[in-house]
């Protein structure tokens, strides 16, 4: 937890990162930036998926529809926050010349997406459609 608070402080203290180590090759920074953008797109896709569930499955029961939509929106928010966090940590690791940070987030996210997908298939196929 203190780890998280520490990296949270790094988000708003770019100077502290710039003071550390030495500036990496600009190509590495750009690659890190593209990875960040790919995660932001993933977050946007999850948010869009949440909107789509609400818009295009109107026959679902209110609770199921809102539950699925909010789960996807929450996943999108988490993904965006994690994108910034991972970008900052990679940036710092590259300046210090350390290994890039590992992460369990991709595994967790793919499990969540798989669970939501299976739930949606079940809901649509077996038509828990009463309103």
């Amino acid at each position, binding site marked *: 937890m203190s780890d998280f608070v520490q990296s949270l402080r790094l*988000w708003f203290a770019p100077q502290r990162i710039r003071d550390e180590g030495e500036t990496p090759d600009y190509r590495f920074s750009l690659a890190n930036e593209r990875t960040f953008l790919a995660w932001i797109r993933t977050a946007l896709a999850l948010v869009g998926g949440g909107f789509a569930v609400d818009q295009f499955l109107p026959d679902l029961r209110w609770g199921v529809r809102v539950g699925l939509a909010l789960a996807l929106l929450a996943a999108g928010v988490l993904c965006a926050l994690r994108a910034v966090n991972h970008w900052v940590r990679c940036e710092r690791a590259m300046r210090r010349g350390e290994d890039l940070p590992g992460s369990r987030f991709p595994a967790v996210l793919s499990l969540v997406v798989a669970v939501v997908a299976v739930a949606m298939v079940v809901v649509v196929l077996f038509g828990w459609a009463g309103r």
Partner: protein
Amino acid sequence: MTEAAAGIDARDPGLQPERTRLAWRRTTLSCTVVAVLAVKLAVSDEITAVGITGLALSALVWIGFLAVAHRRIRSLSPARPQPLSHRAALLAAFCTIALAVFGAALIW
């Protein structure tokens, strides 16, 4: 030969700045799609005060993202561009989260 060496020195043969620019463009397009979906969510059946507020806020967030992406794309034009600023990264993430929050409020 020397010309080729000078060219490599001036511009990365791996086209990293170009790829990064295109990544920003792709992300802007994703943001546009999500903003359009948010607007559809806000003004689907009838026009209400909540719907108009959602529409205005979504449009504002979209313009904000557009501005961030545009500034970053412009700053990638030198041969050796500066790394992404913290402010731009936080703003991009903030726009995503804001769209999710507006959507959640409208869905709820």
